[in-house]
């Protein structure tokens, strides 16, 4: 009888400790999102994305903002850290780029951070080439 009590007590303590560890590392100090390993919420073309944003920025924000999306389009500009698709979707990369994408159709995955009214572009960050 006594032995059973100790077993129950230890298991309760163990559960509490593991829950604590989970809460500490899994919630409080959880690493930032890793966009490259997330499955995209949307797979769309660059043209459709900019169309949605020019038609109704608020509605488009509610759809795409902060979501991981995969965008397909032709690369129209390329710098060492960014690729612009169809002149309207600005994709920022974390690492320096050394791929040659110019004028080629590509698919890029990243997090949509919103619409830039200064340059009339949709901005995507933490990008990776599919």
């Amino acid at each position, binding site marked *: 009888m006594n032995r059973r009590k100790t077993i129950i007590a230890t298991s309760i303590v163990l559960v509490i400790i593991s829950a604590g560890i989970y809460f500490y590392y899994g919630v409080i100090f*959880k690493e*930032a999102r890793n966009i490259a390993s997330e499955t995209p919420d949307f797979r769309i073309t660059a043209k459709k994305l900019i169309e949605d944003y020019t038609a109704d920025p608020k509605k488009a924000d509610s759809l795409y903002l902060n979501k991981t999306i995969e965008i397909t389009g032709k690369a129209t500009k390329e710098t060492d*850290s960014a690729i612009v698709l169809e002149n309207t979707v*600005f994709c*920022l990369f974390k690492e320096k780029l050394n791929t040659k994408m110019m004028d080629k159709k590509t698919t890029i995955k990243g997090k949509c951070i919103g*619409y830039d009214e*200064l340059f009339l572009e949709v901005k995507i*960050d933490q990008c990776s080439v599919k």
Partner: protein
Amino acid sequence: MKKSYIIFLALLLIIAANTQGTAQKLITKTGNIKFQASMPSYEEVAAENKSVSAVLDQTTGDFASLVLIKGFRFKVALMEEHFNENYMESEKFPKATFKGKIEDFDSSKITSSPKNFTLKGDLTIHGKTRPVSVIVKISKVSNGLNAAGAFEAKPEDFDIEIPSLVRKKIADKIKINYNFLLIK
């Protein structure tokens, strides 16, 4: 025949004038903004945004900048979530903007060593606009200008409420550093 020649000449002039006009504007789409709101002996509260847009008109000194709030990155995911959801409400106010003018701006006087200018204008954060005046250091770089500086902002000035529970952990004045490499 003569008429078409004149039209052609006029068109050429218009094109020339247009390219001249756009050449006066310096832009960046990958400007950098960092902010620090840490208190001593508490966790670091800091974030960085590397995708800030800015335009500077070299002839007039007009300056405009736009930063997307979701582009700020923190080391800790929970902090980023709180920043977006509780403080900045980035679903409702997805961007912060600045529109203003650099006083006594003269691009011919700018050299490779940084020179101080006063930048005056309206800063909009969290849907609230306030006039600000900051010092900006401008220096010449190949193909453009570099504009950098730092200023402080108070959350309450922009209607950002910080609950008393975490008030001690967040600085009263938030230090903001910016660096824009503006090119043609």
